[in-house]
């Protein structure tokens, strides 16, 4: 393989803003070429980093209508300016491309130690173009960047790949890779980093697999500088004190996200039996208390994380003996209550399998639970399922299916396409039971018991997704924070999770803020739940870390710009208001049980309010020409206008 060395010439023109590594790595896999470019300063000013620069660069690079699994797709990893610094939970990266699951904007985020290491190696982002002619992996050791043969690790699981690459390059190397699911182009394959951390949603692992790229191993030894070293530590101490003194902290350390099972059960928001209902009779068997008592080895944290919600768990007994990271609430629900499984050891093993095979546990659980419901209703026969008795609660069948999906064996080949595509193939009325938006399975959030979540899932840019907007302020009553953030005028309705009023406004505000949070490389835990940090803290951090002249107004604008840019990407792919929808089960069928009994999601009402707050066209759900102009997206506005996708307002 070719070796590429790069001089330190870019240092001469170092970036004005600190906090950034200041360079972007371009990898042309087709021609095996490596190129380093400076991080453009205006890109930092307009989009910060992370999800923001992904949105901008990929809007320009990805042509509309391409096949997401073809070499034309572009895969981009990006960290934020705060990634790798001492801001609480600043350890995240964004990975984005056109999604093979939804066919529209795809992006995913993960924590861990990999993203900071990439910055210490001197790169803010990596952009992969084309497709390698045979399996390769990328090895980055500061200025030495090499595309290496992956013959030995192709076909291996995530943990094996991690072991082999660290054996080869040294123990301090951080690895992001795909498992067999990504290699086999499972449409919801994840990219895994630091063994147990997953950038899971929207099938980024399949894009990586389609590029014949197995892994990215990084070691870095460069500095991240800060703009104001004198004041920096005082700010850090203040942020840390603020985070640590929040009343959520003890529970976070004790349970991580696992005790959400109990909390969600209490409000009837725990998806059960493929979202048929929001309560699960045996919830206590799969909840946080059980895990804490019996399976928790210790809490683990990612880089610069004070909350330590990561788990390290172990199952000591056969047949589900396993040991590793996780689980999160999402997995406990999607492989647990959603499939009717109450055997916690099977769920933990399923979680371990998903990590090791590189599968998105949410979409995997969503697809399996859809198949379970169809099987019970007699829409799919036992023969079609390779003889598996796939009723709700059959944990053995569920585990077997996870392996079949990752390797596309038997019926796994069909289920690897995701429930939406699988239903379109089978038909026979199975489409009615697909719990998806825009092709992606709904995560472990029952929207009938929290209306804002229903709206957020319907509008999220990457298809059904609770994290894009993450409107959790009304979930367990953060009235104080709502008052601080939005003022008095929206209370009390906005804090009532069953009331659709003001939810359009809240989702819009939350989406903008979450886009900024992902753009700077910080976790949504700590910024949204618990809501400790808000725009002003990000402003302080950007000033003291990067030396950027920003204020709250500018940051809000950046957030809105990113969301509109994601929307513009989707509009080019044909998305409009009719796609911002929910399955009929959630909008027409009242919740049968639990505290939300009788409720449906009043989606249209909330959508109207949402589009109005966004300044988007009520009929089509598209940004207006003027809206895009006001956000400084002239080229995007012109582009969409030329294609006839948006209109100018009639004057």
């Amino acid at each position: 393989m070719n070796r590429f060395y790069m001089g330190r010439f870019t240092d001469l023109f170092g970036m004005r803003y600190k906090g950034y590594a200041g360079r972007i790595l371009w990898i042309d896999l087709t021609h095996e070429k490596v190129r380093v470019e400076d991080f453009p300063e205006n890109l930092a000013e307009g989009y910060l980093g992370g999800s923001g620069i992904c949105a901008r660069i990929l809007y320009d690079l990805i042509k509309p209508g391409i096949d997401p699994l073809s070499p034309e797709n572009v895969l981009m990893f990006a960290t934020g300016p705060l990634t790798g610094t001492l801001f609480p939970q600043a350890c995240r990266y964004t990975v984005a491309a056109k999604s093979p699951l939804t066919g529209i904007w795809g992006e995913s985020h993960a924590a861990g130690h990999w993203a900071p290491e990439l910055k210490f190696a001197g790169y803010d982002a990596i952009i992969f173009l084309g497709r390698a002619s045979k399996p390769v992996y990328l090895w980055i050791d500061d200025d030495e960047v090499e595309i290496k043969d992956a013959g030995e690790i192709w076909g291996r699981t995530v943990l094996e790949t991690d072991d082999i690459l660290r054996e080869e390059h040294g123990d301090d190397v951080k690895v992001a890779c795909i498992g067999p699911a990504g290699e086999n182009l499972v449409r919801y394959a994840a990219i895994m980093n630091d063994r147990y951390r997953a950038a899971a949603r929207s099938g980024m692992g399949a894009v990586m697999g389609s590029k014949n790229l197995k892994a990215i191993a990084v070691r870095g030894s460069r500095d991240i500088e800060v703009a104001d070293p004198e004041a920096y530590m005082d700010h850090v101490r203040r942020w840390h004190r603020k985070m640590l003194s929040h009343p959520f902290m003890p529970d976070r350390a004790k349970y991580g996200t696992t005790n959400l099972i109990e909390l969600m059960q209490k409000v009837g928001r725990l998806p059960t039996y493929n979202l048929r209902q929001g309560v699960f009779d045996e919830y206590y068997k799969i909840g946080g208390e059980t895990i804490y008592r019996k399976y928790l080895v210790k809490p683990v944290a990612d880089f610069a994380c004070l909350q330590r919600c990561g788990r390290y768990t172990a199952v000591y007994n056969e047949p589900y003996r396993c040991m590793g990271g996780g689980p999160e609430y999402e997995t406990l629900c999607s492989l647990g209550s959603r499939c009717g499984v109450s055997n916690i050891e099977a769920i933990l093993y399923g979680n371990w399998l998903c990590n090791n095979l590189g599968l998105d546990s949410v979409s995997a659980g969503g697809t399996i639970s859809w198949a379970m419901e169809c099987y019970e209703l007699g829409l799919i026969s036992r023969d079609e399922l390779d003889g598996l008795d796939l009723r709700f609660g059959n944990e053995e069948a569920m585990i077997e299916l996870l392996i079949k999906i990752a390797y596309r064996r038997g019926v796994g080949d069909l289920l690897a396409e995701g429930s939406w595509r699988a239903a379109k193939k089978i038909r026979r009325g199975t489409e009615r039971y697909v719990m998806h938006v825009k092709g992606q399975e709904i995560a472990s959030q029952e929207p009938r018991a929290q209306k804002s979540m229903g709206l957020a899932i319907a509008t999220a840019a990457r298809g059904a997704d609770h994290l894009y907007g993450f409107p959790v302020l009304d979930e367990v009553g953060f009235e104080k924070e709502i008052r601080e953030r939005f003022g008095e005028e929206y209370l009390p309705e906005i804090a009532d999770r069953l009331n659709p009023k003001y939810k359009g406004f809240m989702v819009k505000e939350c989406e903008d803020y979450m886009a900024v949070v992902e753009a700077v490389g910080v976790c949504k835990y700590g910024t949204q739940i618990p809501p400790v940090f808000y725009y002003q803290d990000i402003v302080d951090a950007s000033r003291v870390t990067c030396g950027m002249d920003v204020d709250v107004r500018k940051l809000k604008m950046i957030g809105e710009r990113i969301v509109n840019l994601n929307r513009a990407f989707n509009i080019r792919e044909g998305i409009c208001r009719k796609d911002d929808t929910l399955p009929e089960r959630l909008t027409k069928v009242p919740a049968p049980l639990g505290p939300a009994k009788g409720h449906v999601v009043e989606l249209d009402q909330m959508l109207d309010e949402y589009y109005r707050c966004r300044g988007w066209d009520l009929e089509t759900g598209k940004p207006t020409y003027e809206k895009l102009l006001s956000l400084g997206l002239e080229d995007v506005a012109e582009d969409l206008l030329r294609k006839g996708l948006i209109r100018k307002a009639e004057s």
Partner: protein
Amino acid sequence: MPYIYADPSRCTGCEICVLTCSFTYFKVLNPKKARLRVVRMEPAIDLVIACRNCERAPCMEACPNEAIKRTSKGIIVVDEGRCDGCGRCVEACPLDAIHIPPNGRAPIKCVACGACVQACPVGCLKMAYSFEEAFEKRRNYAERLKEIILSLRSSG
């Protein structure tokens, strides 16, 4: 002799101590410029490695220039003026607790200043002042391990 100690079963591996250390001494964020390290090992171990200020210190013995000295408080320090950067101390240390930072000449090591102790969000970093205390800590740790093993046995 004081040294930094962390319980590997309580350390979460967030590396806030590491970043704090590099910032305290170099005013930059860079784990490779920190005087202590956190090594993550399977399964579930996050091990903080910092100089133990050994009584018979291999680094001191290995140094050909007598650049490594012990202060009155028992802390081993590197005299940068005398050090010629040969790196023999780095090779000699059994704990990997002394290393030459990137773009640096003289090696750096933990001098037990305690900046990291204050920064640890879990409160698991401690300044161990004597071997008696360290022994006490290890015994506590052994007691806890015993509990874990017993509970495993009863559940298994």
